[in-house]
């Protein structure tokens, strides 16, 4: 059994329709002056979700996102035929996490940015459970697209969350686990990133077979 305990859980679920400017008004005070001005909606949400977690260099960060820097991507594409250097930088995954950590000038040794859809959550959880660091910070998030959303290639929701996953159970809000043993034929659908987010927000348990075993999210 591989397991880690949730010692930090913070979720940013912004009001529907919130823009990056709205997030800057709401969350900007959490960031050094000047940094928030250049941050994307996703960067602001992930940075806010990290609040209360004193990130250390020896922490590992695992990041899960399906659409990543959707708004920066839209704006960068809109800048052609004179592409914007700043939008190019911020459109590249994993810019949102880098924005949050560069604002703090916080280096980390291991950082694993994952994308995908069908089994993204499963892979992110497994990566967090396998990592040798004492503490793994698991981040997830999306920002809501505009024209890309209209074409089905961006998220229809904005959210960002941070889980501090440690080996100690004392005082934990819950745990993430993986029990090896399931066969390929027993694989079940893996929760999508928004569904996993909803489970975190509602403190609802999850259990599914995949990746050669059983994954579980349980609450204390």
């Amino acid at each position, binding site marked *: 059994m*591989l397991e880690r305990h949730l010692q930090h859980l913070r979720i940013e679920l912004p009001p529907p329709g919130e823009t990056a400017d709205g997030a800057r008004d709401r969350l900007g005070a959490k960031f050094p002056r000047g940094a928030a001005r250049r941050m994307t909606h996703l960067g602001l949400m992930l940075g806010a979700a990290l609040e209360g977690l004193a990130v250390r260099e*020896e922490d590992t960060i695992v990041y899960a996102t*399906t*659409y*990543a820097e959707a708004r920066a*991507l839209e704006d*960068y*594409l*809109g800048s*052609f*035929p*004179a*592409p*914007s*250097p700043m939008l*190019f*930088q*911020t*459109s*590249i*995954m*994993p*810019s949102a996490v*880098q924005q949050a*950590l*560069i604002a*703090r*000038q*916080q*280096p*980390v*040794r*291991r*950082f*694993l*940015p*994952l*994308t*995908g*859809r*069908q*089994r*993204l959550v499963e*892979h992110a959880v497994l*990566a967090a459970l*396998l*990592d*040798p660091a004492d503490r793994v910070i698991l981040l997830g998030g999306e920002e809501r697209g505009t024209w*890309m959303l209209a*074409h*089905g*290639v961006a998220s229809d929701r904005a959210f960002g969350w941070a889980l501090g996953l440690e080996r100690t159970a004392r005082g934990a809000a819950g745990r993430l686990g993986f029990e*090896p043993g*399931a066969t*390929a034929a027993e*694989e079940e659908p893996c929760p999508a990133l928004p569904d996993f987010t909803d489970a975190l927000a509602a403190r609802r348990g999850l259990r599914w077979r*995949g*990746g*050669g*075993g059983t994954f579980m999210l349980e609450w204390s």
Partner: protein
Amino acid sequence: MSPAADALPVRIEACDCLTPLGDATATHAALLAGRRALTMLPVLGEPGGETAPLALCRPMTETVPPRWLPDLRRLAAGIPADDWGTARRPVIVTSSNFGVGSLHAFTRDHDERHLRHGPPFACVDLLRREFGWGEQVWLISHACVSAQLGLAQGARLLHAALAERVLVFTFDFLSPFVAGGFHSLKILNAGWPAPYAARESGSIGLGDGAAFAVLSRARGDFCLQAHAGCNEMHHFTGNRADGSGFAICAEAIAGAAGGRRVWIKGHGTGTLEAGRLEAEAFARALPGAPLVSWKGSLGHTLGSCGLVELAIALAAVRTGRVPGTVGSAPPCFADTVALDAFAAGGFDGVVLDSNAFGGAHAAMLLTHA
């Protein structure tokens, strides 16, 4: 003192790459001959734009199906057959671009068919259908250290006994999206890249590239012994001026190399500050170890460079000749920079280094099994 590298020894059962110069064998031979795959081409493709050094497998025109699909079919034909994409045989796809060029193509001609392979998952779903992979396909994207992270994660799955074999597959094909972006940053310009050369101004080239490696615990003549890395998180495109990010990674992988005599396949894109910091860090961490970069010929294959260049390094070790730093000339940032080809005999390991935006660094140690 730098943290230790992660010792995760795994064998390489099979490995190959695809560049505009051909497969790993052909690319290695072309590098030995000093051939440059880069040519001066418009950064925006058909619409034009200023010219810069680009190395393309075929014209940089986004098509439906995408232009890179025939090349990936050709590369994938060399992957040993197996039940890929299952829990015991997962696939790890790494890229910094995936199909993002298709999104640019859509904004240009409004053909919705481009969007079918625009987002990373949709792009990889296309590969899954093409190659018959199951759902257990990991996607890793951390700019230009993506492939190194994929190899490390594959090793971790094998060491946890959660997988028997892992296929790491990587590809990055250029588009106006990425060429225009690097050009806007002014590091892709009209100059030819000259990695590690101490000259007035720096410049990089960009190249198409794809590669795969099959990793397992027991089979294969070569071994990836250890992985080291760090993420400076100091600046989006710059590094700490004291070179501490490079030093942490170089010292960690040098520790894993122990007393082995190694040569170094560096990142070496042709930018001045990063090239100097990398050359100096490795000259300190591994004194006397020859340092080469092949991006003066191939261009920077972005998120795929770690695995593309691993395949070429394996060809170099097998044939006994290591290509030098094509496109560079003295003076260089360190006297360890090898401009000319040299014999691989006498070395018992290779360090492969990659760097990325955000001050990300990754290095791995390759040895005989």
